[in-house]
């Protein structure tokens, strides 16, 4: 029976209360451990398509008569348009339509950040479109930009009310402590840089807008664009069968989609609007920089008595305040916690979600601070973490649906024990050390999410759902889940996704929610199909349903009978067996979180400031693992991206003008394959017994969370230097080493 419930829905730490209709989730979970298909390392079902180029990404979409759009973007962080010659643009060769600030909400004559859209043109080629925009000859009154986040907080230029969390009595906690450590940490602005830049191709078929887009959120784009054009929601059909990465920056429609849709409407032709790499690095979103002033207080046995933090997030002109204080509030048991978070509104390009927004930044600060505390207490950092393990959610005392962080710590020990041997390998200027950090994050997913499955007379199953696979391998995971439940080989299952006109609603691929949201729906649909097949078989072979099962592509009976699935479904001719499944609710009154720990080994050249990450061991607890091969690939990707965050990536803005200086990939330095260390992945793989029929949580985000802190802690272990600012460039490291030497000199000079 469909049930209407009021529930708390979470995406990346943003909670909303909403009504949802859920169906009962009557299926028992599979027993723990690898099954026939689920839990087996499985190559991607679409790997060959991707590798051979057969997979059609938005960047590959070519429609007859397609025009190309280019967007005139503000060259200033804050300015007022004085003059703009759109007539000259209109008259340029190959131009088919031009729109300006009055024509679309996402275009403006008073840009508030570099790259803010001003006008757009559709032309026969991208080159013609760009050339035409050169003729717009805009004149600007350039205004003073607000760029400093601390100044913004002072002037109350904020995108949200300051967010405060105060539990227990922080001051009393401080007073009860034997040791108090305080430090300021900074994290930088980071850019997503997916391989496929943000882009859409829009085409009107009558009153329906057909929209190919590189997105993590087919249904969100559908609703956003439909609302913008005053259409019924299914007046927009969103298609994204393959996409080249998003990392959180492709959760919304984006100005390029609205521009393409409007230009397509005006020209009656398909229009592509694709960001260039430079636009991508300026306007497609970013992980906002943070300043974190943190305090940790503990008794001499390591028991935390107080945690406090003031967090300033430099959000840019738009965006939302990520849960940067989340790790401080939740990672450890501490009765007295006081945090305040400010979201500074600045004349800089808007932030966007980026792989565990808030927690990546907040974990860097907290987990470095905890190691500074361990050093002061002369306690083993791993032991300090164990002693402060949180048995329930500290923010509201809710029990966790499952938590195996202690098991992660236990497995981390083997890697942590290597530190003596690693340190001993220090040689000359190369100092070696080992550091660790813990991870907490959401990732439970939730309803609604739906799947349909149809099985035809050939016994093959097609899973149909309008889900997107952002490259994490969820298409493969869904095929595995359906095959497992149906008892058929993986090759007998097709997964058709990526089209809002051809399948039911699926969750956004963000917040590590796709597998935990869609997986249970697919299993539920498969169970519905299986039930029907067994009912048919029972009638066909005059047996009771309860003695029948589906295994290895056969209907088998308890007395040893076996009939191929085709033999049963072959009766159907053109009739089909149709199953549907929905994601059930999350347990009420409980908290669903993911956990983990990472141990990093580094070598540091103390003369030149070079840092080499030599090994990272990652142990994560995300419930049942559907595809161990896909999971280790997620962990590796997260750690590699985190190494970029830790060591080399940083968007640099000109402090005078607010213009982005690192617009190309030679200046914005993502790690190369040569920078990738040995990565050891271990997954606890214990199903969460309270979480749906599957017991799986998401793994997209957890692995990126603790790496930077583990690296910084390893650097301290190797050199004694406290690195408190990301990225840890050679400059940063040499400064930290100098500060450590200075502190040592002062310490030595102090009277005993």
């Amino acid at each position, binding site marked *: 029976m469909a049930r209407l419930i009021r529930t708390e829905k979470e995406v990346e730490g943003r909670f909303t209360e909403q009504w949802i209709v859920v169906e009962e989730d009557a299926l028992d979970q599979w027993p723990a451990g690898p099954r026939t298909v689920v839990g087996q390392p499985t190559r991607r079902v679409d790997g060959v398509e991707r590798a051979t180029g057969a997979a059609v990404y938005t960047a590959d979409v070519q429609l007859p008569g397609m025009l190309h759009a280019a967007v005139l973007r503000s060259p200033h962080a804050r300015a007022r348009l004085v003059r703009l010659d759109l007539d000259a643009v209109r008259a340029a060769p190959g131009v088919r339509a031009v729109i300006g600030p009055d024509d679309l909400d996402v275009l403006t004559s008073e840009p508030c950040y570099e790259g803010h859209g001003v006008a757009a043109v559709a032309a026969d080629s991208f080159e013609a479109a760009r050339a035409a925009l050169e003729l717009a000859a805009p004149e600007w009154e350039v205004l003073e930009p607000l760029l400093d986040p601390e100044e913004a907080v002072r002037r109350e230029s904020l995108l949200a009310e300051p967010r405060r969390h105060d539990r227990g009595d922080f001051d009393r906690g401080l007073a009860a402590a034997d040791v108090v450590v305080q430090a300021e940490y900074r994290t930088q602005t980071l850019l997503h840089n997916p391989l496929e830049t943000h882009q859409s191709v829009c085409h009107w078929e009558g009153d329906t807008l057909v929209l190919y887009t590189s997105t993590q959120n087919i249904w969100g784009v559908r609703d956003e664009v439909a609302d913008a054009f005053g259409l019924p929601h299914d007046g927009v059909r969103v298609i994204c069968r393959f996409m080249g990465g998003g990392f959180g920056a492709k959760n919304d429609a984006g100005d390029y989609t609205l521009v393409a849709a409007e230009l397509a409407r005006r020209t009656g032709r398909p229009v592509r609007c694709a960001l260039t790499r430079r636009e991508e690095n300026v306007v497609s979103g970013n992980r906002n920089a943070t300043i974190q002033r943190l305090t940790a207080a503990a008794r001499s046995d390591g028991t935390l008595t107080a945690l406090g933090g003031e967090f300033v997030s430099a959000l840019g002109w738009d965006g939302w305040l990520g849960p940067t204080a989340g790790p401080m509030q939740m990672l450890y048991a501490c009765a007295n916690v006081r945090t305040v978070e400010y979201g500074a509104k600045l004349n800089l390009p808007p932030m966007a979600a980026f792989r565990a927004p808030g927690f990546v930044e907040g974990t860097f600060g907290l987990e470095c601070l905890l190691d500074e505390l361990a050093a002061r207490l002369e306690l083993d950092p791993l032991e300090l973490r164990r002693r402060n393990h949180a048995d329930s959610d500290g923010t509201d005392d809710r029990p966790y649906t499952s938590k195996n962080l202690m098991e992660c710590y236990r497995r981390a020990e083997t890697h942590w024990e290597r530190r003596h041997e690693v340190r001993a390998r220090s040689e000359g200027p190369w100092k070696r050390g080992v550091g660790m950090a813990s991870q907490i994050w959401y990732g439970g997913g939730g309803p609604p999410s739906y799947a349909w499955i149809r099985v035809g007379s050939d016994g093959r199953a097609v899973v149909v759902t309008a889900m997107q696979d952002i490259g994490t391998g969820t298409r493969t995971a869904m095929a595995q889940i359906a095959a497992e439940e149906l008892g058929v080989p993986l090759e007998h299952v097709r997964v058709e996704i990526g089209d809002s006109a051809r399948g039911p609603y699926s969750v956004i691929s963000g917040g590590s929610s796709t597998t935990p949201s869609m997986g249970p729906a697919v299993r539920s649909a498969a169970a519905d199909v299986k039930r029907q097949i067994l009912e048919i078989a029972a009638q066909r072979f005059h047996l009771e349903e309860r003695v029948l099962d589906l295994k290895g592509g056969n209907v088998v009976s308890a007395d040893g009978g076996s009939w191929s699935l085709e033999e049963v479904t072959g009766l159907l001719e053109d009739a089909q067996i149709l199953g549907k499944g929905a994601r059930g609710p999350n347990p009420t009154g409980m908290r669903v979180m993911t956990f983990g720990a990472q141990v990093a080994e580094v070598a540091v050249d103390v003369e030149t400031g070079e840092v080499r990450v030599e090994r990272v061991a990652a142990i994560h607890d995300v419930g049942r693992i559907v595809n161990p091969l896909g999971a280790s690939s997620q962990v590796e990707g997260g750690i590699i991206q985190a190494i970029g965050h830790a060591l080399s990536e940083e968007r640099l803005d000109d402090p005078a003008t607010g213009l982005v200086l690192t617009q190309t990939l*030679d200046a914005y330095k993502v790690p190369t394959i040569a920078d990738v260390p040995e990565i050891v992945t271990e997954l606890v793989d214990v199903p969460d017994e309270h979480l749906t029929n599957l017991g799986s949580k998401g793994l997209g985000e957890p692995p990126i969370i603790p790496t930077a802190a583990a690296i910084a802690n390893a650097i301290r272990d190797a050199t004694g230097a406290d690195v408190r600012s990301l990225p840890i460039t050679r400059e940063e490291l*040499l400064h930290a080493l100098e500060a450590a030497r200075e502190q040592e000199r002062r310490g030595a000079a102090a009277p005993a």
Partner: protein
Amino acid sequence: MELRRPPDAQHAVAALGNGSLALAGGTDLVPLLRDGIVRADTLVHLADAVPRGIDGTRIGAGTTLAELEVDPQVPAALREACAQAASPQLRSMGTIGGNLRQATRCWYWRLRFPCWLHGGEVCHAKAGQHREHAIFGNERCASAHPSDPAAALLALGARVRTDRRELSVAELYRLPTDESRDVVVLAPDELVLELDVPLPDASVYLKAMDRKKWAFPLVGVAAARFGDRVAFGLAGVAPIPWAVDSADDLDRATPLPGTAYKVQIARALIARAFSAL
């Protein structure tokens, strides 16, 4: 835009100047054209116009970095500088002649800020973001020269033969001035044809960068020993490749607040290069 492919150096030189630019590997020129930093009516392709190949100490200007990095005739410093430059794809396209002429990576210059090097009044990097910038010769412009091989050729005392003269690599470069913002002394229609690279007794190139591969030098140090004399050439520390006699010369560096760390790195790399010889 027109593309010409003259059959020899003489025709190429005749085709250069007046809005015509020489195109070799194109790894720097094509992005500069695309970004509107340099303009050209005609591109003169040099494939048939400049020599390519290595013959003892003589290296054709059209020789690619990929060819240099594996040739045993080439001194170690130059081989190592080529091998640590850019990526394999870029090294397979980029020529040593073009590499000597490559432009700074200063982000202000690349983003067409109206800076001093572009003919304007101020260096935006000095008051702005300059962690990749210069510690020497930075009074007017803080840009850093990005070429690894040029530093090696400087240390090796290489000579350059153009269509009209011969000069040392040290003489090829000059700090830009108010009158001319060029970093080389060559005429607009002058073509580098060949290098003569003396064989040292020993040489080495050491490079500090932001990641292990595919990054321009924060500091590159080339060292070459001829008998008991050691010469050093530095990349990434000045608007042009910079020669120093010893680490003591770093005492005269004029770093910006954000480039002081480069002095420390240069000191360490010079000491290491010296002991490697």
